[in-house]
């Protein structure tokens, strides 16, 4: 539904050049919720703004619903008619809602329809229908200033849907909201995605958002996509930073002598007594440092961090056994995690997720 190829954006200001996006190839399939995550300054906003050409990419192409938008003339404000029409078929929601304070809720939702030149009766019927859909039918005559953040974002979503778009772009739509409201907005996005078959590309810096609603995800670092795929694929990828951040397992090893392993269970392997078999068959003492079972992207998944006595070389056979059982096994090097600067993003993301877990 959305395809970018070789997308590059270089900002030039006062002789300095900033490469905000650096050759991004992204593919968002029809009807999925795709999350882009990354640290501040990674280029996420630049990427999403290039998708509807609010920002003209320096090079590369953007195709939305089969139409090459980069081929249409005009940039930013001076967009050609064709580009403006294409934009009206792409909905966008914003972190700070961007509702007009001079208009009522209903008038805000009607704005895109005014731009499309619809009649007054058609506009108000559509606006009321959309407000009903987002659960704000009773606020039609209120002004944005009289609404809570979550309600404002619902209006923002209703407005984005007014032109019957097939694609919804969302740049940190929940970042200004509290956790409870965030959940309800994400649920709404998920419902709309299911009910209307809407394709959603969302930007976030919260792992929780990806975990709750996304079918697929991509991790951005310094303008590049370093990992991407469906959540299932990511979890099955050894060493995936996204997978580790999506589903972290904690637990410190008892000492430097042992071998620490992270084990991921998918699907039917979740139910088998693998660990007790391991202990019995190889006569090893298995210490469980941390474990969790969760639903990620709609699938049951389990993760466990265990410690076996002795060095890794001494444990090749038990590790082989675990792999034979269809489990994903990764060696945890206790030093590496803290040192490697590339892992910083994940460590931060983990910290966020862990902090959430604690507050729950």
């Amino acid at each position, binding site marked *: 539904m959305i395809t970018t190829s070789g997308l590059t954006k270089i900002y030039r200001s006062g002789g300095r050049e900033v490469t905000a996006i650096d050759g991004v190839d992204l593919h968002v399939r029809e009807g999925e919720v795709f999350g882009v995550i990354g640290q501040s300054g990674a280029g996420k906003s630049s990427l999403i703004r290039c998708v509807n050409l609010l920002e003209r990419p320096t090079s590369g192409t953007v195709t939305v619903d089969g139409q090459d938008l980069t081929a249409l003339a005009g940039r930013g404000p001076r967009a050609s008619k064709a580009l*403006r029409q294409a934009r009206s078929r792409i909905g*966008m929601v914003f972190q700070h809602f961007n509702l007009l304070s*001079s208009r009522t809720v209903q008038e805000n939702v009607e704005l*895109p329809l005014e731009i499309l030149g619809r009649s007054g009766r058609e506009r108000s019927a559509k606006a009321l229908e959309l407000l009903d859909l987002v659960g704000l039918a009773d606020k039609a005559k209120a002004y944005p200033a009289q609404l809570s953040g979550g309600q404002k974002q619902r209006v923002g979503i209703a407005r984005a849907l007014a032109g019957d778009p097939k694609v919804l772009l969302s740049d940190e739509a929940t970042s200004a909201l509290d956790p409870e409201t965030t959940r309800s907005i994400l649920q709404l996005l998920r419902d709309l995605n299911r009910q209307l078959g809407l394709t959603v590309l969302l930007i976030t810096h919260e792992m929780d958002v990806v975990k709750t609603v996304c079918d697929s995800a991509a991790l951005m670092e310094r303008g590049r996509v370093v990992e991407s795929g469906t959540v299932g694929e990511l979890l099955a990828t050894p060493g995936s930073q996204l997978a580790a951040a999506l589903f972290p397992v904690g637990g410190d090893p008892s000492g430097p002598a042992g071998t620490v392993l992270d084990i991921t269970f998918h699907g039917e392997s979740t139910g088998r007594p693998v660990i007790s078999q391991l202990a019995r068959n190889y006569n090893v003492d298995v210490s469980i440092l941390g474990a969790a079972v969760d639903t990620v992207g709609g699938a049951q998944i389990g993760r466990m961090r265990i410690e076996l006595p002795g060095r890794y070389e001494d444990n090749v056979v038990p590790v082989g056994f675990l792999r034979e059982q269809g489990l994903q096994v990764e060696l945890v090097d206790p030093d590496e995690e803290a040192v490697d600067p590339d892992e910083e993003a994940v460590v931060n993301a983990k910290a966020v997720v862990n902090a959430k877990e604690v507050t729950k």
Partner: protein
Amino acid sequence: MTWSEMQPLLSQASWDTLYMVGWSTLIAIVGGLPLGVLLVLTDRGGLLQNVVANKVIGQVVNIARSLPFIILMVALMSFTRLITGTTIGRDAAIVPLAIGAIPFFARLVETAVREVDHGLVEAVQAMGGNTWTIVRKVLVPEALPSLISSATTTVVALIGYSAMAGTVGAGGLGDIAIRYGYQRFETGLMWVTVAVLAVVIALIQFAGDAGARALHRRGGRGGPAPRLRLLKAKEPDTATATDAAGIRRTA
């Protein structure tokens, strides 16, 4: 001079002032609003970025604003005659008043429009709106409370300028204050004129503030209207005053 002598003079003068200020305000708004919006649009990073046009408009506005009104009036004599057929009287005074007020109002409009959140512009662009749509549906309506305050400021400034219009025989409140109060030592009439002017200005300011505040309350974005902010700034003073009173009481 008795009240019955002053009364016809005052009512004629008030009417003249109202006439001159009313028309020139109208023209200033019609001319200054597009000019102010254009100053924002043509600026660097604006929707119609055009550095040359921006510089030219900006310079013209600055020069027109820096000229003292009395000089502007003289400089515009031939232009005034071209438009009104005369260089004296109420109608002739409207021309320099309006031309002086257009750049004044345009700068205020520029400031007001610049304060509109760029996110709103972006939202309308994302909906497929063009520049004209953005001006009509975002920039002007969202800046409206500030624009009303700007118009109020312009009216008050025009009342001041119109006092000098007496020099071209246009009449008005300022004119009788000068002619009777200064030249004929009718101090009584002068003070009455001053009082009338003060009341008129206070009423205009009050109406403008009330209008701006009503729109602001509805919109409720970007903090209180300018007047309220003034009151807020004074709050610490009243607090220290009450503190002082408290100390005195306990002492």
